[in-house]
């Protein structure tokens, strides 16, 4: 069956940003998102959460434009002051048109 080439944008951030980032992802035009509770360590060290190093991972399947909007917004809004990492890679999606 034919697949559509889209982008998987992954964001890992400290948990306190959860609601903000969900809102941002929707505003930028993503059709949905998947979040996972994760832990991690990075360069910022201490961050705020019930526990050390509790983070949340967002995975968003999007078209190129929406993807870039999300990436830009993350790096402008959060990168300076918060613990966050963001990366993107191409993925072949079933019925990909649904997520454009």
């Amino acid at each position: 069956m034919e697949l559509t080439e889209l982008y998987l944008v992954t964001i890992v951030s400290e948990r306190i940003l959860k609601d903000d980032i969900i809102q941002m992802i929707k505003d930028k035009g993503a059709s949905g998102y998947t979040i996972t509770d994760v832990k991690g360590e990075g360069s910022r060290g201490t961050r705020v959460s019930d526990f050390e190093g509790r983070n949340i991972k967002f995975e968003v399947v999007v078209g190129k434009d929406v993807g870039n909007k999300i990436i830009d917004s993350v790096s402008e809004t959060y990168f300076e002051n918060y613990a966050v990492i963001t990366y993107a890679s191409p993925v072949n999606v079933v019925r990909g048109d649904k997520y454009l």
Partner: protein
Amino acid sequence: MESLLTNFTSPIVLAFLLGIISKLVKSDLEIPESIYKAISIYLLLAIGLKGGVELSTTAFSEFIWPVVATVFLGILTPIIAYVVLRYVGKLDITNSAGIAAHYGSVSAVTFIAAISYAETIGDPPEGFMPALVALLEVPGIIVALMIPQLFKSDSTSLKGAFHEVVTGSSIILLLGGLLIGYLAGPVSFEPVEPFFVNGFQGALVIFLLELGMITARRLEDLKKVGFFLVGFGIAVPILHGVIAIIIGLWSGLSVSGASVFAAMVSSGSYIAAPAAVRIALPKASPTLYLTASLGITFPFNIALGIPLYYLLATWIGG
């Protein structure tokens, strides 16, 4: 002194030490996060409920002045903390305000530990104290977060932070519990009492075991934060405690009530405040405010502060 020993043979304090030790020996012991959350929900709801049931049988006149005293100290303590941090400690405005917000608010667990200490030595405080905790949680944070705005040094998003505190789970559970307990009253509360009363002290043991482990991680940051903050984390709580005892007694609280009041006022928040500060003052260093309130003041209060405030209260008010 003897009352100090009582505190050191308390399973609660010993469990806290066990938690610290288990981290130092790198044990794989860990309390699942969901359990930690569940216990804190249970503890907050329980004190809320008990407080509410008490309120339903207390005359308004009895607790109006303690209420006034609480609000007043909720405004005063963050300012004291800020001044000390900014002008004695020479910290920048943002970090001073961020830390001050924690000392203006309250640590519910320190309050709970103070209550059960008072109960253990057979001198329980007024039943409406939990209402004061709920009242003390918010104002201190707001006051502290407003300071940087005066200096326009930092663009704070007060609104977000305010919503964060006011709808924070601890406020919802405390106020909600108070309301439920108040509406239910002693009779309707009876069937749920065994769950919320008998299990309370024991659940606290497990909770402090976990807090010991969290604190242990903080202790590693002690060197990072420097001597001043360590001194601050001990001296300022004592100062706030003494003020609280005097004003508390003046407001009509019993000796036991005043000592628990002192533990509340002197304590530093480590749940509501950090979340609010992280949002409103993202440039303030979490390492500083978390280490101060959780790494220094919390263990100090649990181990020494609580019995100390009781001694002072007896001495001043007895």
